[in-house]
């Protein structure tokens, strides 16, 4: 009688432990599903925001075209002389828990470097991570980097940061950014419509939103892969223990 009670207690304890482990697993799975749904919601919200920012940019571009003339606001004005991009990206890999099978879910992380200025003396860039909200914030952090004096040995060299050299005439960070912005506008002529400047700001904002979208996209694909892996794992467990209902759902006993 005593042994029977002891065995019963042992079984009850084992059941309790199993239930606790099962609850932990369910919590973890629920967390992954929530992460996936959150990232999907962020993706759609950011896409909405991008649409309205782009719409504003197009309207401003159309206004600039109306005031300056159609022939003065066109991409044909950008000639095909060697011209490196002044807004680039930094790509890093995040250490995620995504499964190895799907190459799309390697979780790259993108950071925008705006108005990268290169000269013989100075290289200035303003980095915008995925969290920076206001593109007009002039107090955001800036980095000053020095570059070598070589004149475009090849494309990558031109964009890469080289060893430090002594500056001739240091300019403040914001001055550099304004200089690069003006350079970009000067393609359309010396005097440009204020609407064109506004369009430039709108498209800069759109760029930042796009970087956020790219990062959320990585998260979403990674979370999706994890949820799918869990689903397959649960199905295999049910299938092997023959606990499939008529509708294909897993029955918990």
């Amino acid at each position, binding site marked *: 009688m005593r042994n029977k009670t002891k065995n019963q207690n042992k079984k009850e304890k084992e059941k309790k432990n199993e239930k606790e482990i099962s609850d932990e697993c369910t919590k973890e799975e629920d967390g992954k599903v929530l992460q*996936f749904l959150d990232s999907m919601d962020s*993706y759609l919200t950011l*896409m*909405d925001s*991008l*649409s309205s920012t*782009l719409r504003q940019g*197009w309207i401003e*571009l159309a206004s600039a075209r109306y005031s300056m003339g159609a022939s003065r*606001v*066109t*991409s044909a004005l*950008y000639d*095909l002389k060697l*011209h490196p*991009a*002044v*807004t*680039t*990206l*930094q*790509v*890093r*890999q995040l250490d995620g828990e995504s499964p*190895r099978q*799907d190459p*799309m*879910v*390697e*979780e*790259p992380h*993108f950071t925008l470097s*705006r*108005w990268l200025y290169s000269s013989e003396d100075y290289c200035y860039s303003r980095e915008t991570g995925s969290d920076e909200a206001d593109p007009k914030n002039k107090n955001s952090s800036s980095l000053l980097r020095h570059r070598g004096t070589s004149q*475009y040995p090849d494309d*990558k060299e031109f964009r890469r*940061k080289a060893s430090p050299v002594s500056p001739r005439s240091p300019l403040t960070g914001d001055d550099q950014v304004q200089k690069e912005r003006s350079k*970009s*506008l000067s*393609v359309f002529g010396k005097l440009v419509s204020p609407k*064109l400047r506004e*369009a*430039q700001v709108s*498209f800069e904002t*759109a*760029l930042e939103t*796009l*970087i956020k*979208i*790219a990062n959320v*996209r*990585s998260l979403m*694909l990674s979370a*999706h892969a994890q*949820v*799918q892996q869990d*689903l397959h794992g649960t*199905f295999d467990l049910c299938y092997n223990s023959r606990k499939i209902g008529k509708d*294909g*759902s897993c029955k918990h006993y």
Partner: protein
Amino acid sequence: MANKPQIPTSNSALIAMIADEDTITGFLLAGVGNVDLRRKTNYLIVDSKTTVKAIEDAFKEFTTKEDIAIVLISQYVANMIRFLVDSYNKPIPAILEIPSKEHPYDPTHDSVLSRVKYLFSSESVASERR
């Protein structure tokens, strides 16, 4: 984890664009435009005269270049080469479908959302195995 393929990290990767003229002009204003030594640009302007082959070639070129991290493509252009876009499965460059002036963003056509909508379909994993 130990054998996970590495994403090529970069400090100055480019953003490529395949879109209509106004979208390209706007992003060129933002400083994204790049012309290399061979006079090749990181963008393709799509208009009524642009052929599907030209779009396909540009997409393939941008997705195989090592210095491009993101490819922006107008969704209506992506629809012209949908098979190519949907079958693309590398993490870098990331393909982002964006709206255009005449074609607003449609989530049902987005290739990323198409990949994940499987989880919400009535066809479950179990029915796939039947």
